[in-house]
């Protein structure tokens, strides 16, 4: 009898211990603007930029407050399903501070290029983490996983991404053979100009997948804006990914530029390697879910078979 009681006592203590440690645990997260001290596992999370919203959903968190998206308002369609009950905090550039304070969050995630000035205020409301590079979605995932106490989940997502990247690299190398690594350019069309991206989310992902950039595009800076069709030759590459908003003026500009003889001279056009891609996942999502969707599109464009993916609810 005593033996069973003893065993029961020990088992209960063991069961209590993890919970007790979770309640008393303090995580110190270092980020670009300082250190955040987080008690326990934050339940109420506020996301102040698109990448953080994406990552939160991937980690299985429904934030209490998010900022509006830039298109497909108030939230991008690919994330909308999981964000039915959130409060919207205005635009990324000037989120509503009073509303954030009233939500009484346990964790706030912001972007360094936008929220640097308000960081002291945010930190007074709740522990705030600010990743250094807006485009590095893997670092963001690791940071948020640590801050929210979902490290295991974060690592699983990361491992799954790694596996997909490896698979893609193998298949595309098999398909393209000598032509790999392929030089690709990332273009975007607006109503009155066109853009070439030297840096950014899409470029980061493509670099990781092994794609190269044309020599002219390996420069510092985010990219360039072109207003004159004379400069079309600057866009040249072996393959070109184009994204644009679904807007009549933008479409018209694209049609004008793509019917110019200089466009028809581009290597990618001659080889019929111009791919139109989704502007939300390529340029705006900036999180792991967007990255995975980008990869899906790439598999489709290159006609590669995807292996079956293990169950991962939000991936």
């Amino acid at each position: 009898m005593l033996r069973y009681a003893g065993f029961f006592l020990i088992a209960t203590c063991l069961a209590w211990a993890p919970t007790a440690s979770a309640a008393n645990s303090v995580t110190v997260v270092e980020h670009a603007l300082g250190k955040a001290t987080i008690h326990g596992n934050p339940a109420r999370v506020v996301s102040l930029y698109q990448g953080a919203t994406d990552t939160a959903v991937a980690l299985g968190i429904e934030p209490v407050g998010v900022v509006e998206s830039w298109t497909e308002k108030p939230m991008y369609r690919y994330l909308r399903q999981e964000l039915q009950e959130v409060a919207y905090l205005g635009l990324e550039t000037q989120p509503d501070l009073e509303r954030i304070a009233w939500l009484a969050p346990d964790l706030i995630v912001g972007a360094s290029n936008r929220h640097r000035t308000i960081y002291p205020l945010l930190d007074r409301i709740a522990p705030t983490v600010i990743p250094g590079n807006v485009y590095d979605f893997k670092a963001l995932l690791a940071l948020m996983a640590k801050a929210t106490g979902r490290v295991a989940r974060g690592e699983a997502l990361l491992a799954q991404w790694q596996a997909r990247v490896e698979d893609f690299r193998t298949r595309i190398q098999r398909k393209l053979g000598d032509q790999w690594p392929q030089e690709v350019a990332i273009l975007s069309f607006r109503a009155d100009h066109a853009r070439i991206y030297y840096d950014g989310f899409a470029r980061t992902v493509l670099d990781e997948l092994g794609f190269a950039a044309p020599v002219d595009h390996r420069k510092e800076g985010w990219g360039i804006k072109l207003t004159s069709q004379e400069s079309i030759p600057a866009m040249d590459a072996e393959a070109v990914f184009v994204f644009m908003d679904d807007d009549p003026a933008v479409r018209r500009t694209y049609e004008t530029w793509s019917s110019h003889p200089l466009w028809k001279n581009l290597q990618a056009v001659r080889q019929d390697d111009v791919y139109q891609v989704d502007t939300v996942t390529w340029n705006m999502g900036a999180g792991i879910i967007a990255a995975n969707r980008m990869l899906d599109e790439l598999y489709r464009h290159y006609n590669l078979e995807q292996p079956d993916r293990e169950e991962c609810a939000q991936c």
Partner: protein
Amino acid sequence: MLTSLLARASGTLFCLSLLLMATVSSLVFGHIPVSLDMLVASLMDYDPGSLEHLVVRTERFARTITALVVGAGLAIAGVLMQTLTRNQLASPGILGINAGAMFFVVIGATLFSLTSPSELVWVAFIGAATAAFLVYFLGQEAGRGISPVRTVLAGVAVTALFVSFAQGLLIFNQDRFESILFWLAGSVSGRELNAILPLLPLFGLALLVALLLSRQLNLLGLDDEVTRGLGLRVGHARLLIGLVVIVLAGTSVAMAGLIGFVGLIVPHMARGIFGTDHRWLLPMSAILGATLMLAADTVARMIIPPQEVPVGVMTALLGTPLFLYLARHVRKVS
């Protein structure tokens, strides 16, 4: 300052040759190298298959004509405005025309999603005209017609109002911001000839009227009483000149966006060289304005290829040293 007829004539010839050089440079320089004989060939012996000929005929032609017309138009509008308000600091920017065009363009871009230059042209023109009429009516003094001082003050108020509402709209619709940024900065690239050609007759007419009003303009610089005593119908003359200014400045802004410096500085330059007689001042301002614009556009293309510096920026950067030099030698400003 050149006073004798011979001096002025040679000055004119010099300016004309500068204009010619500027035009040729505008057609020759760019991302795609075009040599002089290729240029001549594209004009005389057009070969649709040749890339260089195509570029000259489409891109470069459109830009050159736009720059020429806008430069001349803004310069003349500046002269007229400075004479009308008897204030050497007057320019289309100060009198609300740029602001009116900006406001309407922003409304068009944000609320109606118009963003291509050919659509914006008409919207901008209407905006410029609206602002100008507003300033005109506010600048009236009871029973005496336009008061120069009140017009400038009205211009300041109207400018501030329209600019701030435009800013409000842009900040409210932040995604639309980048789609009209180039227009706001002033640009002559990407214009299609068919969008511009309908406006040219309007320009020509306004220019002609301005030149015909040279004598009246000479008199308007004097005090109102004197002018009336000399038989000039001040109110009518001012109204007509105001209309000409609206057309010139309005269409320039519509075609090329907000370009602020040409209307302010070219009249000063022309006045410094050729004096205040409008029969010389107006044509010379037009020529100098067109030259400045062409030079600015050509240089703007060559600085950070393949990107282009907006032409409105270039005219200000090129014009400021000249302007500051002139400012140091000003005796008295009204």
